[in-house]
């Protein structure tokens, strides 16, 4: 592969214009993307835009990478590596596995980038590919993506509670990002998966149900239990800090 080179601003603009002409827009071709990993059509476009805002120069880099330009592919890697890696890390909770699967996701991107037609935001398409890589990995390992134990026999702490009146501390304003990240990492894998996909990544329950091959009700139930478990973890953390 050639040494990385910077894309010129002029070049970006020109290629962006070309891409706008060649890539189809979502409102005209919403159902014509058979080569994409899984369609994200069900997600409202506004939500996709909020979660995955366009990145300057991205269209140019996509067009050049589709033409086989290795340095443009590296530009795309640098644009998206943090988001893809963070997604893998949050889903897996393991640095080594997250790096391996980030690598696999980008290799898959390289193989499939010529099939990208712009039906959804590129980042939406890539992140969906990364989610599928993680899920495939977990299936190969024989790990259930939705734990039967978590589904059928929720522990007492995940079920409805009636004792919160004994403490008047509310979480609001008391948790920071690091604390929340740590608590998410402590969730059981099935809970963590649904929580990350829904609350962090913004997927809808019908999409998650499709990805995890479970019912929509199951996805909703797992999400609720995940939030309940997080509440307990975060309260314990807040209580510990208050006592210290």
């Amino acid at each position, binding site marked *: *592969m050639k040494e990385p080179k910077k894309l010129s601003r002029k070049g970006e603009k020109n290629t962006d214009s070309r891409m706008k002409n060649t890539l189809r827009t979502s409102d005209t071709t919403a159902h014509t993307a058979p080569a994409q990993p899984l369609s994200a059509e069900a997600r409202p476009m506004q939500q996709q835009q909020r979660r995955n805002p366009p990145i300057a120069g991205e269209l140019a880099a996509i067009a050049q990478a589709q033409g086989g330009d*290795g340095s443009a*592919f*590296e530009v795309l*890697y640098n644009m998206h*590596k*943090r*988001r893809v*890696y*963070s*997604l893998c*890390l*949050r889903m897996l909770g393991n640095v080594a596995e*997250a*790096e391996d699967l*980030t*690598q696999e996701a*980008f*290799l898959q991107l*390289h193989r499939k980038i010529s099939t990208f037609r712009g039906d959804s935001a590129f980042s939406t398409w890539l992140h969906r590919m990364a989610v599928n890589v993680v899920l495939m990995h977990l299936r190969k390992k024989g790990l259930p993506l939705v734990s039967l134990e978590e589904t059928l026999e929720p522990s007492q702490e995940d079920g*409805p*509670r*009636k*004792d*919160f*009146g*004994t403490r*008047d501390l*509310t*979480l*609001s304003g008391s*948790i920071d*990002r690091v604390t*929340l*990240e740590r608590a*998410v990492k402590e969730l059981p894998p099935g809970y963590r998966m649904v*929580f990350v996909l829904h*609350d*962090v990544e*913004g997927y809808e*329950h019908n999409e998650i149900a499709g990805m995890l091959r479970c019912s929509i009700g199951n996805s*909703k*139930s797992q*999400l*609720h239990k995940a*939030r*309940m478990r*997080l*509440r307990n973890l*975060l*309260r314990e953390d807040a209580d510990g800090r208050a006592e210290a």
Partner: protein
Amino acid sequence: MTNTNNSRTPKECTEFQEQLPEFFDTGADLLDHPHLKDCENCSALVRDLEYIAAQAKLLLPIHDPSPQVWKNINNALNQNSRGRQPSNGDKTS
């Protein structure tokens, strides 16, 4: 378990909390739900769960993969491209 500052019965709280996943999913405005008018426990629960969901949306991707990840990708792509190059015997005039 105690249920202080609360005129609601545990059974009512259980029934309300069992419906919470559906309430959250439909985006129902829970502020006006009759159960929350005088149940501090469930009000606190709803506030906390909404707060957690809101905070999760703000979690930004902050972790970078090590430089080795790109090196591995680059090596794999280079190997693939070498594997696809035709040998001399494959050349056509």
